[in-house]
């Protein structure tokens, strides 16, 4: 056999095709999936002890993960009270003052007013961006000629900071809702567009060959192979666009608005309502966090198959 021009060595990566080995892969390969394939192997373990140690581990992880935030909040509470002088403390009030102001803002409905104003704008702008970005992105990946024609222009726009265009939007569209929705749409449009193009133009050529060998027409190829394989990348763009929409909106509201979280923060500052200002900032960061977590979840959901796909 030594001189045979064949390769018959045994690769270690692929286990035998015995049905058993799928179980191994499923339990260690896809731990985060609750909706996955039914797992035939869930051996009964010595139940109580196992559960306890699992809970203990989870608690430990939770404590460790939140420790930095807890320390930060503690410092926020204690440093102004004990380390700062009277005059500095006015500008950096302790956490409990801020939380009280936040509670007041919630009970008076003021917070909700600003939050809903901001949310309405960002949802409107973001939806426009997602719709337009995906549509145009798919069109550009279909008509390659158009893509090479438009890409330089799109690159130019993309690299123009959205906020730099705010004065233009205000001049053209007035200081009302339209200009703010437009700037949100503008800022979140490009991540969606560029990721859609990237996703739809970098499909594994092998999959395209496989689909063609199964007799698919160009249109069906697009619908059944290119589109689904682009979905995870598109959702990455949607997540990036969502984050951008909040960031840009707050800044835009600070410059010119009569409601919204950005306006609230600036307004509180100029009225010298310092705890209220911090309450607004806290709300903004919580909102940003919530939006990001939600979008990351969404992205992960639509990328499930890719997470564990073999890297070729």
């Amino acid at each position, binding site marked *: 056999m030594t001189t045979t021009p064949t390769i018959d060595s045994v690769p270690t990566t*692929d286990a*035998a*095709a015995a*049905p058993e080995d799928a179980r191994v892969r499923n339990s260690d390969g896809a731990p985060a999936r609750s909706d996955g394939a039914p797992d035939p192997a869930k051996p009964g373990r010595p139940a109580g002890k196992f559960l306890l140690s699992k809970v203990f581990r989870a608690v430990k992880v939770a404590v460790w993960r939140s420790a930095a935030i807890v320390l930060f909040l503690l410092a926020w509470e204690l440093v102004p009270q004990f380390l700062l002088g009277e005059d500095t403390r006015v500008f950096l009030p302790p956490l409990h003052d801020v939380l009280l102001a936040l509670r007041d803002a919630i009970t008076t409905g003021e917070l909700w007013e600003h939050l809903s104003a901001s949310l309405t704008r960002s949802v409107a702008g973001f939806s426009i961006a997602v719709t337009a970005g995906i549509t145009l992105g798919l069109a550009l990946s279909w008509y390659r000629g158009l893509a090479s024609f438009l890409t330089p222009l799109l690159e130019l726009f993309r690299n123009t900071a959205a906020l730099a265009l705010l004065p233009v939007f205000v001049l053209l569209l007035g200081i009302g809702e339209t200009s703010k929705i437009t700037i949100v749409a503008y800022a979140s449009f490009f991540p969606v567009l560029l990721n859609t193009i990237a996703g739809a133009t970098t499909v594994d050529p092998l999959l395209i060959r*496989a689909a063609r060998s199964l007799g698919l027409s160009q249109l069906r190829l697009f619908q*059944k192979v290119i589109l689904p394989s682009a979905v995870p990348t598109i959702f990455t763009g949607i997540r990036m666009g969502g984050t951008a929409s909040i960031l840009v909106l707050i800044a835009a509201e600070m410059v010119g608005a009569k409601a919204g979280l950005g306006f609230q923060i600036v307004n509180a500052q100029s009225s010298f309502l310092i705890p209220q200002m911090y309450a607004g900032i806290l709300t903004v960061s919580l909102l940003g966090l919530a939006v990001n977590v939600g979008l990351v979840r969404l992205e992960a959901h639509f990328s499930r198959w890719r997470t564990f796909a073999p890297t070729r």
Partner: protein
Amino acid sequence: MTPVSTQQHQGNPPTPRISLRAVTKDFQVRPAKDTPSGRVLRALEDITLDVAAGELLTLVGPSGSGKTTLLDILGGLSEPTTGEVLVDGRPVSGPGLDRGIVFQQYALFPWRTALANVAFGLEGPQFRRQGLGKEERLERAREYLALVGLGGFEERYPHELSGGMKQRVAIARSLAHEPGILLMDEPFAALDAQTREQLQDELLRIWSATGTTAVFITHGIEEAVYLGQRVAVLSSRPGRLKAIVDIDLGDRTIGAERDLRSTPEFVAYRHRLWELLHGEVASAQRAGHQKIQPDGTERAA
């Protein structure tokens, strides 16, 4: 699972199922540093070969001898530069459901379950016209998954399957639309020895049960002898047909019980092919071609 027979000419002499006539394939090589103007690379030269209906032909050749190129041409995924390819006497004009291809790298759609992967080829308009609804489609896909021994794994995604299982799904997918011709490009190269032998026996079983005409590409001489009724040997680049060896080992579907591989006949065939390939492999390596790795990493696109 009705045997597929789309043979049209019953008279004598029978039309070969597949017929390659003086097929030559040139590739335009992209300009590089040493060849700034770009040049033409001849991958296949003057291949003339018939495959009879119901035959299982294996094709061996050193790396870079144009095996994949030949399979692509048979599958209609690329066109010969000169010469022609006939299926049932008609020139091939593109891919078609009369031919099923199994790729070396599985090529499963990772966002689809095993079942949905197998059903993929059944979703075209031609099947809808035949009245194949969603239920019938899935039923058929389920049958073929069971045929390759994967009953119970319908809802698994490709990343939840082992290499051998993925290749089974790929085989089921190429069988599900019941093509008369099965084209396979080193389908078992990435598998370990035991899985490979197991799948070889299953392939023989399926092949004889369905009456499919099959072209099977491999690097393995043993595999070529074990599976093929005839073995076609390609020379190193440009790939020319060096020899065709008839293999007569009796009923090959019972090979598993007989340990066919250690019979004197088998060893003799193996040695004969080894001699045919020996010089070719050496010259392929002189030309800078590495032998393909068992995981198929060397493959040209």
